[in-house]
């Protein structure tokens, strides 16, 4: 397979994951704004999307409709839902020969209908609908990938893009809110303020799952444990790292080449299997997350070089 194709698949799925995550952040911000007027959730949503500086530079004060528009459809914002989706579709065109017709049609359909739907600013009353549509499209693309693609190197590169972006996203959500999870703010073991934990869990679509597992008791350590270490939670760091590990191992099996990225992922995996949430809190949550983000950043760069996405 061409290095460029591997890179195209990787970025196609990374962009798809990003657009879905951004949509989820908008959903969370919108929900909190509706239920908790006066909270400053939009600022932290922008920060999580790593779009706060770009927003301030272009629009100044944080204002709901502008933030939504910026995150949803602003072509000047490279991580807006529409920008990410366009990038995904652009990459899909580059790798047209590597993906199945089903996957291509799902992406192309989604692009055509989103482009139409997001041609003008979305009124607030339509927002839930539009966000639901984005979720459905993402699910459909994922479904066609699972249902139609050969389980070979091509599939592995798609999955690497998805889970690297996901790990990154979850770590950023936690890092933007890490202060509310700190023991100094809240006694270990006591209940968190509803808004804060709701935001975090909503951003990863994990409210119901968490409550089911913890009988509705939200503690800082419980939430951190759930998002970092729980192997059952499909957006936890542990889960994403396990997936990346397994796909990189598959590539090793297929190519019989061992690269720098293999060392990095093994190291990351060891940490997440051996460490406990208590140790993380002792070490410092922010420090832990900073290092984790640095590691995934390195991993991304290594994958790019090791598999010759570019020269």
């Amino acid at each position, binding site marked *: 397979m061409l290095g460029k194709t591997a890179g195209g698949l990787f970025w196609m799925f990374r962009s798809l994951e990003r657009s879905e995550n951004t949509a989820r952040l908008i959903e969370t911000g919108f929900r909190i704004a509706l239920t908790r007027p006066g909270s400053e959730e939009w600022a932290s949503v922008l920060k999580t999307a790593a779009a706060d500086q770009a927003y301030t530079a272009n629009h100044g004060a944080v204002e709901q409709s502008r933030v939504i528009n910026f995150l949803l459809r602003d072509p000047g914002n490279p991580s807006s839902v529409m920008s990410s989706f366009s990038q995904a579709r652009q990459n899909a065109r580059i790798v047209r020969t590597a993906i199945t017709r089903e996957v291509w049609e799902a992406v*192309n359909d989604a692009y*055509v209908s989103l482009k139409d739907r997001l041609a003008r600013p979305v009124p607030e009353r339509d927002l839930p609908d539009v966000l639901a549509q984005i979720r459905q499209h993402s699910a459909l693309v994922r479904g066609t990938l699972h249902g139609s693609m050969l389980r070979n190197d091509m599939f592995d590169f798609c999955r690497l893009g998805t889970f690297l972006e996901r790990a990154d996203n979850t770590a950023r959500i936690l890092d933007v809110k890490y202060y509310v999870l700190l023991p100094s703010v809240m006694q270990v073991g006591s209940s968190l303020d509803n808004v804060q934990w709701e935001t975090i869990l909503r951003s990863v679509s994990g409210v119901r799952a968490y409550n089911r597992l913890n009988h509705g008791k939200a503690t800082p350590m419980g939430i951190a444990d759930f998002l970092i270490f729980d192997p059952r939670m499909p957006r936890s760091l542990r889960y994403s790292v396990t997936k990346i590990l397994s796909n990189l191992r598959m590539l090793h099996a297929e190519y019989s*080449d061992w690269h720098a990225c293999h060392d990095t992922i093994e190291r990351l995996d060891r940490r997440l299997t051996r460490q406990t949430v208590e140790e993380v809190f002792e070490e410092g949550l922010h420090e832990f997350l900073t290092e984790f983000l640095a590691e995934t950043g390195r991993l991304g760069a290594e994958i790019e070089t090791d598999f*010759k996405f570019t*020269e």
Partner: protein
Amino acid sequence: MTSGQKFFDEMRGINDVTRAPYDAYASWFQSEDPKGLIKEAKEAEAFFRRTGITFNVYGQADAEERLIPFDIVPRIISSKEWALLAKGIDQRVRAINAFLYDIYHRQEILRAGRVPKELIARNEAFLPMMMGVEPPGGIYTHIVGTDLVRTGESEFFVLEDNARTPSGVSYMLENRETMLQMFPELFSSIKVRPVAGYPTALHASLAACMPPDPSPEPTVAILTPGIHNSAYFEHAFLADNMGVELVEGSDLRVRDGRIAMRTTRGYKPIDVIYRRVDDDFLDPLNFNPGSLLGVPGIFDVYRAGRITIANAPGTGISDDKAIYSYMPDIVEFYTGENAILKNVPTWRCSEPESLAYVLDHLAELVVKEVHGSGGYGMLVGPAASRKELEQFRAKLQAKPGGYIAQPTLALSTVPILTKAGLAPRHVDLRPFALFSPNGVQLIPGGLTRVALKKGSLVVNSSQGGGTKDTWVLEDD
């Protein structure tokens, strides 16, 4: 065009009686509900948009991807008609290849005075760097798309020989796919020759032209200028269906004396490259240094005999519009036979007498740029306004050698489906021929382009033309 002029309609002849090749289709059509068909036609468009069969239009700022309209009424050719075309194209493809070999070697045809020397000497499509090159298998034109028009029951003319990088074959294949999905019952009652084998045939044909000392795993690849090219969909489509890699210049390097592509596991040599990049952009080291699309050094590797480039560089000299008028001589010179397919009579404006005639009859003629393509820079006299005629007259007088003129042909029509039912529209035909040391292989079908505007004679997709599925019938 004088109104009321009678055109040959391929379905209804000139006497409004259904012609034999259309018998079965016509009776099927009779039994269908026109409204239902129109609905189905709309669905076909949705199908194309979903599969992403689009093209980018040159010269438009917001290079949005556009669909080429598809008409659901097939263009039907009898097996007897096809046999004649096939023979004529076979002869023409061989002659073109012999001409190219000669022009890039001893130039006997110039020495014999059958083609004027100046025509080659002053032609930008002539590539001196190809002089003395022995292309693998002796093949220059691996793929040829011959543009044909029809004016009567057995009147076929060659309008243009496309020997560089003819496009449109993906429409031939996708149009058939669409028809098979929409009207499966038609194909069980009417025996239509299949076209689906084209990608396999193309792969086999290219693989038969390996360089003399290929790499251990002989490899074919397609070179595309990239996703912004108007025919990118076709490049991807062919790569996909041939099971080969679709590469861009940035994927390729010279490695160990070969052209190699960057894979996830390092560089892997390519032996045959089906390039969809024009000569000028092919190699910035040897041709246009400003090209970012090309592969530096590919021409060096080609000259060293370590890669096959299909079509070979420099084939443009054979499909140049100024050379076109000499095609009957060229066919006769190399095959010793008269050309089976006729040329459209052509005035070369470089010749003073012809220029005078053309200027006098501008309103009746079609005038084309010698090096133009895609219907751009062309004058259709009968359809032009007085102002357009005068503007064109000035251009012609300024640079007569840049133009040729032809009579406005009474192009045949085939019906399209409109809201008011069937309506005749002008068509042309581009069949695709593959040439390898094993011979010429013509795929029974082709791209039928149709001018969707009533009375229009311009079928180019960039100028509002559409396409149809082309049926070649099996022997009865």
